[in-house]
């Protein structure tokens, strides 16, 4: 399994409950909105709903889609002490209007906004983009089951 030097691991982060399949052909905004709904329970009590949606909508415009067809909208919040993530798999994919790339995997990542955590935040971004290469994304998008998807990620 690909693991960062500081012990950042995807296995703990992407449990079957944190993987969802987004059916149909949602737009980029809609996909991110659905993932935000899904992540909200993880951070409720820490971040207000409106603050979360507003911030995610903001970063959704800033964060670019990677050439591999993987998209990581990510936001930092001072209220958090750990990573929170939800992975959305889109069998139909959507076309990123900026790059024209077909996106079949979107991972919403929330990180603590603390200077001491920034190195781990960078490591996590690097790890995610290293892990989610086109072959894995295609395999994940072809699956139907969240547990199988989580297991496949764990096995990488």
């Amino acid at each position: 399994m690909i693991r960062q030097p500081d012990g950042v691991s995807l296995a703990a982060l992407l449990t079957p409950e944190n993987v969802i399949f987004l059916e149909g052909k949602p737009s980029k905004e809609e996909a991110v909105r659905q993932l935000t709904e899904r992540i909200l329970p993880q951070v409720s009590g820490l971040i207000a709903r409106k603050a979360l949606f507003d911030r995610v909508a903001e970063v959704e415009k800033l964060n670019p889609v990677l050439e591999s067809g993987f998209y990581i909208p990510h936001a930092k919040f001072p209220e958090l002490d750990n990573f929170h993530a939800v992975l959305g798999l889109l069998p139909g994919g959507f076309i990123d209007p900026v790059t024209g790339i077909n996106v079949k995997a979107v991972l919403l990542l929330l990180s603590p906004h603390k200077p001491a955590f920034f190195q781990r935040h960078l490591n996590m971004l690097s790890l995610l983009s290293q892990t989610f290469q086109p072959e894995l994304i295609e395999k994940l998008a072809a699956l139907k089951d969240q547990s199988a998807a989580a297991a496949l990620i764990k096995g990488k």
Partner: protein
Amino acid sequence: MVPNPKFKQVFVLSTAMLSFISFWKAASIVLCDFGSSAYYAGGIAMNAFGPAFPWFIMGVMLFSGLMLGVYTESCIMFVRGGVYVVVREAMGKVMAKLSVSALVFDYALTGPISSVTAGLYLGSLLGNILPLLHINWHVPGRTFAVVFALIVTGYFWLENIRGIEESADNNLKIISFVAVVAVVLIAWSGVTLYSRGFTLPPFRPVFSHEALGWTVNFPWLRTAGLIGLVMAFGHSILALSGLETLAQVYREIEDPKVQNLKKAVVVIFLFSVFFTGLLTFISALIIPGDLIAGKYADNLLSGLALELNGPYWGRLAMQVAVVVSGVLMLVGAVNTSFVGANGVLNRVAEDGILHDWFRHLHKKFGTTYRIVNLIALIQVLIILVSRGDIFLLGEAYAFGVLVSMTFNTASMIILRFKHREEEREWMFPLNIKYNNIYVPVGMMLVLAVLVSATGMNLLTKKVATIGGLIFTAVFYMIFHVSEKMNEKKARFYAPDDDNDEKMNLRREADIHTVVPELTKTRRILVPVRNPNNLVHLTSVLETVNDDDTDIIVLSAKIARGIQSGGETMSDEDREVFSAVVLLAEKYGKTVKPIFVFSNDPFYSMAQVAQAAGADEIVMGVSGSSGAEIQLERLAMAWGMLKKADAPSKPVLAKVVWEGRQMTYQLS
């Protein structure tokens, strides 16, 4: 696997100026011109004002220390300096064009006077050696000198089209050999003087009719007292030619630049005093006066070797060493005249006063070959016109050197007032502080000497005055017309930048073909985008030792959907590289500029850094996104491109801006 290639085109900038030279090499380039006058200045001065010549040659060499001081201050102020830039800054373009036109006249003469002298020395040696070999051929001195001069000029014409680095190496070898010969000659001369005793030469100059020039029409100006001294000094000042070359090679000097410049200046001064000054003086003590004026007039140091105490074979061997060293140094001066004139004309061309046609770069060697061709052509014409007469060449010489030094010194004085706030790393000594101005009393005294000598030379050296004025006028017109043509062109197309850099760009199919050129143990990648935001590159150049570190400067042009491979650099892209080259020159550190077309600059950074095995990536802060987002995007690109089996080498990513930096480790 990444589906799309990140960039289609890689351009590598490979201009010759991006490698830097040691102070020894810089000093040797200057000395090959400046020091070579030892072989002819004494004879020419003797011809002009008689046996007092060694005092004045020594005086000129001591005065060179002061001029080196003036040039040191100007070089530090203007990395790409020289008389043109300094005078333009102080007095404006018209005076700058005049001063540089005069200077080109001197460079045009330096080659011929040096190569003809070398031919005369060689001819004299052959005249002694051929009879010993029972070869019955009378060497026709001047004809032989002309043929030899043409061959030498042709050789260095080709060498300069190939580029400076090789030439600088040659110069260092030449000067090292000359130094050894000089030490032996001085030691042997010391023994001879000890056994023979000596009489100091007279101090009072006795001028020939030709040396008086137009002053014969002004009897009150004749030779007496201070006027006579200035007149003789003016006739000896040709020994000072070559200092402008210091300004031309300063940009090539390696880090630490200012300290290395000072070291080069000390080396040049000591060498000149002991080599040109002392050997000329010793020659006058050892060689009988009639032989200096006759047999050895155009090969004085050969005469010194042959007039030493000792067996004939020993003296002949010494002459061989003197001639070989002299020929090497004098032909080195030919090279320096090419390098110097090329440098001067490139500076003026960058300022738009020489038509762009001259700056076209050689496809293979990246040199401004059309300027080199022009210099070669002028030198060949002068050699042919002189017909090997060293005194005619000497008579014409020194016009440009005096005019340019006078303009340069006057400009440096003006700049003390005009740029009073500018901090100077070094100042010419003898200053009086008045309010916030350092009044340059020392430089004013130097200027007084130069102005006196220039004025006197205009009257006494007819050939120099007429030839110099005509040549200066012609070159001034060329500059003037070029400037007008460039202005017209600028109105229709794009404005020329002040520091527009002609670049030699090599197109590569892939970044991996560039990697083998990176040979140092550490590698730092410095992405650049905005020519006005190079704080991060400055910080790297200030702190990194380029002896063990490759500094890769990457500029990535955003080109969406690139596919064809036919992309070209725009003027804006070139402007970025010009700024990079200027900065590298300022710090004297070697950089490897690479330009890529990419659809994402962060992918390019990650790809180049991974391909090159970079240890650090140093970015400037982006005004639009900010340091954190830059690092996030780099981290994502880094991870996406990283192969699972790649070695986990720690790579530092830094974002640097004024007074701050963020450092993180990519993994």
